[in-house]
């Protein structure tokens, strides 16, 4: 269960300017050391926020990525993708 690490990637983008710069500069290398599944790693690098949301990543945190267009996520692209997401299992 490494969706925690996905949430932390997003949260630290707000709180840690050094981490944010690393994500901007070379996202693949930045997240390489993190304990992510192959699917999570790929979804982050592809900006697949709908899939991450469906796995339980918190949307409030995912939306931080648009502030700096991390993983290519402009607001319009983020919005288009997340609006197609299904509700994650078990979330009410």
């Amino acid at each position, binding site marked *: 269960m490494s969706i925690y690490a996905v949430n932390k990637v997003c949260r630290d983008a707000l*709180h840690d300017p050094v981490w944010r710069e690393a994500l901007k500069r070379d996202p693949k290398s930045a997240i390489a050391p993190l304990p992510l599944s192959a699917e999570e790693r790929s979804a982050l690098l592809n900006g697949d926020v709908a899939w991450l949301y469906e796995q339980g990543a918190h*949307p409030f945190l995912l*939306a931080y990525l648009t502030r700096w267009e991390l993983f290519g996520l402009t607001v319009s692209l983020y*919005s*288009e993708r997340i609006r197609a997401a299904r509700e994650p299992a078990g979330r*009410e």
Partner: protein
Amino acid sequence: MAEIVAAIGVPHTPNFPALVAKQGPDCPTARLYAEVAKHLHAAKPDVLVIYTDDHFNTFFLDNFPIFAVGIADATSGPNDQTAMPSYRVAVLASLASHLRAKAIAAGFDLSLAQAFELDHSIMVPLHFLTPDMAIPIVPFFINGLAPPLPTAQRCYALGKAVSAAIADWPQDARVAVVGSGSFSLEIGGPRIPPGERAGTPDPEWVKHVQEHIEHGRIAELVAEATPARLARAGNIGGELLNWIAMLGAVDGRRPAFIAPEIEHGHAYAAWRLD
């Protein structure tokens, strides 16, 4: 003995300080906050007991409490890059400790935070209500953002227990109780509008909640604010729980002032209880 002299409910939208700095004191946000502040200061409170939801800033998912209270001599904020001045504000640790002990004795297992900063959910209201930071606070944190949320019944009961504990505090103090948050708001989830990162998915619920509060129909509000109903109001819809805890101090009395901003998903309200 301590006495609850006022209750207020406000939104805490992070862009409000910058918006009002740009638009000036006649813009709707400034006027609505000023109206609430007028009622608050007329009650001459010595301390503000505030119910809010941390947005993964004070706490994170490594350790995220359902209910917590901050007990320290002082705190500061915002700690979440909100575009606003930074403030330091006193915490009334003696009252906070009393309220925590009494609430635990009443069956509410409140987590303890002794070293913490605050995000926009408290600092934005304080920026408008007490910009001189002259009134100390007691911050209560309710999980309104990370499902499963506590039930509305539980939050209302917490608000009642805290109100009873305030009345039981042996020191003379005039206490105001604050609920901070929106009624309908979606941030970053599937119900945001096209091309946006946030929206108000359920304006009808905002109107409905506002009418319940305006007419003192708190039992009805608590009964209707189920987890599923709050979720339909948006992924930030759980912030209503902060208001519901605050309403534990109000006992069905009607507000002296209430004004919704339906399209923005929130309202402003004030009760004089002295």
